[in-house]
């Protein structure tokens, strides 16, 4: 034992290290989130947090559950593959509460031009017009039914009601 007689200061120092390590371990246990490392080096519950962001675009399936007449017109026309909210904007609020949230009808003079204004950069097969030449700036819906835009191709529904009978 005589060899350890002068080693007291070393044991005190080692004791400090042990206490510091335990302290670190306890604090770490409190501050590291429970789900950290669940899937990898990140907080697993972050996935649930991100997935809880509110949905703003309802999706065309939701629209079609109520607006079956327009869905019918649309599937027969050239805009069959264009989803409702591509033109009408995000309407999840309307889908959740159809009576109090009513969508604004888009202005066809502005809306249609976004896609159909002629440009050399657009694919050659895509229908394009110069809006001023084509209609003199009149709203496209005067002649075309936006839900089935080829004139004469719609199912007898008037252009003004947008295909709704």
């Amino acid at each position, binding site marked *: 034992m005589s060899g350890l007689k002068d080693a007291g200061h070393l044991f005190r120092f080692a004791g400090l290290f042990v206490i510091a390590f335990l302290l670190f371990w306890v604090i770490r246990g409190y501050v590291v989130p429970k789900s950290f490392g669940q899937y990898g080096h*990140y907080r697993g519950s972050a996935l*649930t947090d991100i997935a809880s962001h*509110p*949905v703003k675009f309802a999706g065309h399936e939701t629209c079609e559950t109520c607006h079956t007449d327009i869905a019918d017109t649309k599937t027969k026309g050239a805009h069959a593959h264009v989803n409702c909210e591509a033109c009408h904007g995000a309407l999840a609020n309307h889908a959740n509460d159809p009576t109090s949230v009513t969508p604004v009808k888009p202005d066809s003079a502005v809306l249609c031009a976004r896609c159909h204004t002629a*440009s050399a950069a657009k*694919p050659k097969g*895509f229908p394009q017009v110069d809006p001023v030449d084509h209609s003199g700036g009149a709203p496209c819906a005067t002649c075309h039914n936006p839900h089935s835009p080829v004139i004469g191709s719609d199912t007898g529904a008037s252009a003004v009601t947008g295909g709704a009978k």
Partner: protein
Amino acid sequence: MNISRRHLLVLLPAAAVAWKFVEAGTPEASPNYNKSDHWWGMLIDIPKCIGCGNCVRACQTENDVPDGFFRTWVERYHRTDIHLENPEVISPDGGKEGFPAVPEGAEGEYFFVPKMCNHCSDSPCTQVCPVGATFVSPDGVVLIDQTYCLGCAYCVQACPYGCRYIHPEKKVADKCTLCYHRITKGLTTACCEACPTGARQLADLKNPKDPIHEFLKTHSVQVLKPQMATGAKAFYNGLDGSVR
């Protein structure tokens, strides 16, 4: 309030049981969604893109992206035979409100290229994060835990595609989530929902019935910057050699 020894003996086990539920956390939002059944990517069909900017607007609406920042944007390339390596690229306000008219009689080819996070499976951005705030999810989406992010912007520099930015109000990194809140509920992304020509299609590479597999077999599909071996999952059809 006086708590007798008897009350305490009842309360302690009750508290212990309650604590177990607190620890377990809130239940999953979509119980039918199994992360290990999916591996998400995106198909971008350049010959179909008309540069209308619908995707940019839809993304900003769906994800509250601040003005002047973009999770997705559209570029217009102008490539001439002389400047094959240095095409002229414009993207005014991310292409949100469309593009200026092509000058009359201009030579060369004009085309649109939609850009977004490539959701790389070996993503450089997640490798540099010092705190584990960004990661590739088990279903193949590169996400940011914004409560963990310090805003050091290493990842913004690391992304070879320029798809990340520091959110001006939150002061943390922000990027495309591939509409994780939508795809986990069985919906498609906001940009795909709003694209009028089908130039963007969400693809689930783990779903054998997904049309992406047939498309990859029958078309010449590329990724951006393949030399960087990022394992990018934004597949471009009809990609011109001048696109960077």
